[in-house]
């Protein structure tokens, strides 16, 4: 039995697309303009792209920071508990 239909061309996420269209072939160079055999080839700097992808989820990061400060408080409390309890 073939499962091809189930997998083929199904909706792919943006991350799946960026994962293939950016990739590291570009990343290694890091320059905006590559000179290949003396010909100007304008390429994007992958790091620029990645960072722009990352800014999208800034709000997520903020949430993560809140979470970590919450965790910090929790640990502090645990520590106090040990010190006072010991």
């Amino acid at each position: 039995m073939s499962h091809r239909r189930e997998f083929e061309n199904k909706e792919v996420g943006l991350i799946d697309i960026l994962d293939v269209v950016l990739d590291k072939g570009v990343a290694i160079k890091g320059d905006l303009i590559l000179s290949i055999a003396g010909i100007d080839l304008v390429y994007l700097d992958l790091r620029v792209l990645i960072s722009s992808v990352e800014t999208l989820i800034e709000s997520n990061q903020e949430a993560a920071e809140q979470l970590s400060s919450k965790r910090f408080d929790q640990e502090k409390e645990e520590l106090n508990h040990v010190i006072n309890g010991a």
Partner: protein
Amino acid sequence: MAKLVYLYGIIPKNDSYKEKLSTMKGLDDFHEIHTIPFQETEAVICHLDEVQYGEKELEKKTNDVKWVHEKAFHHHEILMKLYEEFPIIPMKFCTIYSGEESLAKKLDAHQENMIELLEFIKDKEEWIMKIYCDPSKVRENVSEQNTTIDQKRKEIGEMSPGRQYLEKRKLDQLIDQEADREKDSFASNIHEALASISLQNEVKKNWNKDVTGRTEEMCWNSVYMLKNTAVDDFLNHVKELQDKWEPSGWQIEVTGPWPSYHYAKIG
């Protein structure tokens, strides 16, 4: 005014698709997509205005997440349309030449290589597998089932409260390490099984949650080049693995077939 050339990909020489292409708009939503013949191949391109898409402007545009998303998707969409019809050597997003002349020089220099690549990919498909997991679930399982950890926990139970606190912290770190090891070993076993069906394969970088925007953690990302005839076998295998592991929180996801971004590259 000089025009920049945005290159989508290289396809074999062919006359049957000209009409289809001319109805598609290029990256700037203005210039039409068309082909330029180069010996036995054709380059699929669109022109871009130098003022709007020159080096400085392009850099500005790439800082705009919305622009990147929209245009990367456009690139993908065009490539998928082309891929439905022909073998294609796909270019990465934003491969732009300063003019037709520089494109011609590049393509002339790689003509032989391009013909070989087009021949090579003709009867093959590129598929990608990503494995996602629920990190807390993996951690929990490791914490419950790992004998070293269990032993350690018993020892800690007999210590003084102050000592216990420190040792528990250390144990937490150990559990983290073991959980990471578990993710890697689980995923690489799956990879080995699939790799044995493929002609070529490559382990790619995992993207962190900030980039994927998902709650699950990506713990594996790899690409496989398969003979057409092996694809069914490959997908059957994936299906079996999915059914087996999904209940324990492992999501094995495959996408494809992709234009051969990984195995049809010109130097």
